[in-house]
């Protein structure tokens, strides 16, 4: 069977033009995907059934047993952590927030180790952004700062920027100027008209200088900043000020270096400053296909995009205190539910050591690093392959994930729904 216009559940590009062929309960072919999407659709390494850790290995358990065991672990805890959420659909994320509220848990998503700092920056200065189609149709200057779309968002340049057809551009590729700013010459940098190589940790200083230069304070800027010559900075300022539409994209190059959200804030304020001269927008290159959805869901349900502590009943928010890395590293939780992410592959080892010492339940279709650190893993359908639901693209556009396979696996919504209902029975309304 052939399905057109399927969504790719991999990265924040959320491409929705994929053709998928499925035969005999498996995906047998895909078209239009990048390598990342292809591997996800064709991957076939699912966990077959729930597994539970025993004293000397692993045993298979039923879904009923798994749910009962999950309840025990979470209801007994004084400070459970519910972490992950970016690899599932919005409907499941909603149940997660209700669950956190009922349990008095901390709920955090993977944006705390991805674009969490961007959110902190936005909370200080706001976010002049747009949907990706605005960029595609109008932007004549594209800046990629601290990101590497060729490896992390492979179709970004062909769908939305450099190579995309645009209504107001005669020849998109020729008419656009692409500037890449990074600490190394990535493959993306090879495709740029201008490559700015910056010393690691120097982004903040360079962004401050650019802001001052856009404001006409050129004279006080030293000849070189963090390895970038003033001449090159001047050139960039000229390109941006003369642009009709300047679109900045930034990645975790800004959020993961020292200074974190201050780097992002400085980039946003540069765009604010440019907005006084021309049209300028800025967009974070969100990683997982629905990490932004998790922020959206958390926000309308609880008021905050991530790192929400419901221990006292009300929602309390303070990244740095209520974020997963901090809680795990300080050993401040006594049980964890991991949904649709793999912290053991992506968090510092001190966090993982704590996971090894507390009850951990993981809900995920695939065996992963966290499998080795959980007491129980419950496999589910894969969102976007055998489960439907809502996902939010990196620019906030919500699209419905399609389903191309029938499945015996429960979806995240079904499984979490059952767990939540069972919790309500115990805790009461």
């Amino acid at each position: 069977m052939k399905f057109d216009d399927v969504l790719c559940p991999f990265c924040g590009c959320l491409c929705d033009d994929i053709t998928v062929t499925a035969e005999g309960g498996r995906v047998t072919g895909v078209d239009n995907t990048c390598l990342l999407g292809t591997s996800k659709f064709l991957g076939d390494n699912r966990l077959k059934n729930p597994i539970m850790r025993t004293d000397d290995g692993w045993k298979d358990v039923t879904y009923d047993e798994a749910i009962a065991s999950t309840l025990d672990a979470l209801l007994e805890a004084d400070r459970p952590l519910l972490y992950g959420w970016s690899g599932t659909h919005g409907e499941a994320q909603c149940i997660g927030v209700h669950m956190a509220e009922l349990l008095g848990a901390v709920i955090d998503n993977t944006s705390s180790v991805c674009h969490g700092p961007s959110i902190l920056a936005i909370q200080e200065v706001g976010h002049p952004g747009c949907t990706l189609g605005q960029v595609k149709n109008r932007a004549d200057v594209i800046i990629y700062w601290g990101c590497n779309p060729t490896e992390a968002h492979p179709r970004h340049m062909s769908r939305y920027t450099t190579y995309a057809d645009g209504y107001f551009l005669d020849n998109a590729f020729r008419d656009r100027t692409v500037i890449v700013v990074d600490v190394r010459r990535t493959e993306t940098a090879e495709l740029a008209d201008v490559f700015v190589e910056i010393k690691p940790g120097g982004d903040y200083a360079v962004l401050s200088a650019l802001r001052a230069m856009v404001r006409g304070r050129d004279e006080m800027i030293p000849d070189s900043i963090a390895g970038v010559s003033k001449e090159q900075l001047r050139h960039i300022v000229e390109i941006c000020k003369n642009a009709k539409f300047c679109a900045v994209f930034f990645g975790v190059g800004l959020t993961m270096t020292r200074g974190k959200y201050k780097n992002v804030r400085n980039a946003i304020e540069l765009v604010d400053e440019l907005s006084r001269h021309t049209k300028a927008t800025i967009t974070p290159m969100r990683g997982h296909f629905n990490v932004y959805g998790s922020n959206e869901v958390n926000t309308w349900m609880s008021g905050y995009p991530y790192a929400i502590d419901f221990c006292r009943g009300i929602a309390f928010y303070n990244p740095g205190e209520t974020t997963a890395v901090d809680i795990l590293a300080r050993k401040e939780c006594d049980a964890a539910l991991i949904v649709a992410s793999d912290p053991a592959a992506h968090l510092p080892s001190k966090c993982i050591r704590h996971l090894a010492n507390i009850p951990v339940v993981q809900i995920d279709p695939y065996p992963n690093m966290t499998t080795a650190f959980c007491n129980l893993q419950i496999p589910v359908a894969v969102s976007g392959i055998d489960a439907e639901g809502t996902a939010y693209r990196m620019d906030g556009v919500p699209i419905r994930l399609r389903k191309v396979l029938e499945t015996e696996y429960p979806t995240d919504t079904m499984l979490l729904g059952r767990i939540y209902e069972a919790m309500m029975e115990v805790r009461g309304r």
Partner: protein
Amino acid sequence: MMRVLLEVKPRKKPLLPIEAECITPASFLEERDLTVWKGNRELMLSNVFNVSVTGEVDSVDGVEVVLRGETSRIKRVGEYMEGGRIIIEDDIGMHCGNFMSGGRIEVHGNAAAWLGREMRGGEIICHGDAGDYCASGYRGEKRGMRGGRVEVCGNAGDFAGEHLSGGSLIIHGDAGDFPGVEMRGGEIMIFGDCTRACGNMTGGRCHVFGTVHEMLPTFRNMGEVVHEDTGQVLTAFRGDVANRGKGNLFVGNYQYME
């Protein structure tokens, strides 16, 4: 004079934080049950502390609360405190003295992050080191600490005095990255070193008597001045020019990145 001694009892899960915003001098003036939270469980204050009260007073200014034992995971002590004294004999957890408007808190050990967040008045003295965001503000809020005085005898972490808009912050040791970032008023004194002082400041005064590493390029050098109290020669800067800033930054030594 009333003296309240709170001694931490041994705990089964000693690393789980306790939220104890009820620990303020005023709380002990009234006859009421005080509770604290351990994660999602509400506990009587006496479940966590041995509480002994001696003496009687009718004003909060005569109350002294002493915390003894392993208090490094006790959060929010002295929140909204308006008068009296709190003495912490060892380390204290996060958010000590949040929103404090009067009285005095003395920490003999180290203080965790957010010491004196959004402080309005009164005084905090930390004899050890302070964590990140000492005397800072809340996420998304334009103004951080607005009044009062925080003195740290050791080092302070990153983002000290972020969004400072009034009052004074004194750090005798080193400050980390971005002290005084976004500050718009008030005063910071750092006797040791730091990096990237006062990024994006719009107002207020900051003195760094040691060295500012990775000095930001968007501060205008106004020449040398002699500091009145210490006689030290400092370089005066004005900025942050990235943001029409009118803040004053005085530094002993400075190095740009590279």
